């Protein structure tokens, strides 16, 4: 029951974040969505994710506030407003039709399939020595996945450094 209330709160905060005019308020509202997601992880019995989501959300908020501190407020409503909205809604309806077929194939909520995870839970402790199964999956059973994700992470960091650098530009300020 509390999960549904939390999801409704997240949907409400997301609507506020999308529709509000002030950019800084929008960033704060998306922070509310992220913190609600952290609580939802805690309800769904994923404490590692709740901690990580909390830290990442705060960092994300700092980055977004850094971008919006310049106060560039754009509110344009020109003649194509109706066309843009209608085409967007048609696109979303097309997506929802596809999602309807996908939702019918899903397992029921609360009854996961766990065909792979059964082995991980059974042999996780004796093969890796980690009492936290999530840790043993990340660092032992699926370590190559983690290696790939870390590669993506460092590529993104190099991208940020390359985009934001001032030294070496021709028209540096």
């Amino acid at each position: 029951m509390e999960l549904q209330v939390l999801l409704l709160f997240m949907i409400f905060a997301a609507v506020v974040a999308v529709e509000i005019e002030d950019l800084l308020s929008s960033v704060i509202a998306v922070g509310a969505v992220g913190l609600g997601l952290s609580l939802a992880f805690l309800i769904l019995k994923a404490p590692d994710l709740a901690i990580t989501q909390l830290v990442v959300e705060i960092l994300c908020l700092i980055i977004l506030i850094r971008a919006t501190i310049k106060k560039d407020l754009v509110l344009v409503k020109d003649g194509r407003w109706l066309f843009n909205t209608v085409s967007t809604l048609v696109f979303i309806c097309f997506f929802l039709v596809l999602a309807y077929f996908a939702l019918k194939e899903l397992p029921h909520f609360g009854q996961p399939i766990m065909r792979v995870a059964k082995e991980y839970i059974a042999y996780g402790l004796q093969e890796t020595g980690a009492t936290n199964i999530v840790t043993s999956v990340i660092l032992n059973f699926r370590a190559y996945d983690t290696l790939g994700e870390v590669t993506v992470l460092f590529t993104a960091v190099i991208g940020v450094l390359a985009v934001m650098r001032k030294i070496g530009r021709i028209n540096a300020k």
Partner: protein
Amino acid sequence: MIEFVLCLILFCIGLYCVVRKRNIIKIIIGLGIIEYAVNLFFILIGYRAQGRAPILAKDQTVINMVDPLPQALVLTAIVIGLAVTALLVAIAIRIHDKYGTFDITKIRRLRG
């Protein structure tokens, strides 16, 4: 099943924001909402009713654990999401330096 539908609604709000809005910061916020919805969907798939967190205890045997595999995948995806948001914001700040606006319809002059 209602949880999946609510998660889908959250995804659609983010999709609407990305497709419809014209401010770059709003588009980044929409991408963030989509990312939250997808992470939540993974965890909802792996949830077991009256389940326990996937952590073994010394003096008791836990039989009803939730699925640890989506949690392990989402744990790295969250960190990737932070890096992607940082990259997007860096590009947005650079665009604002160059064109003086966040409006995507005014960024037309693609000069080298």
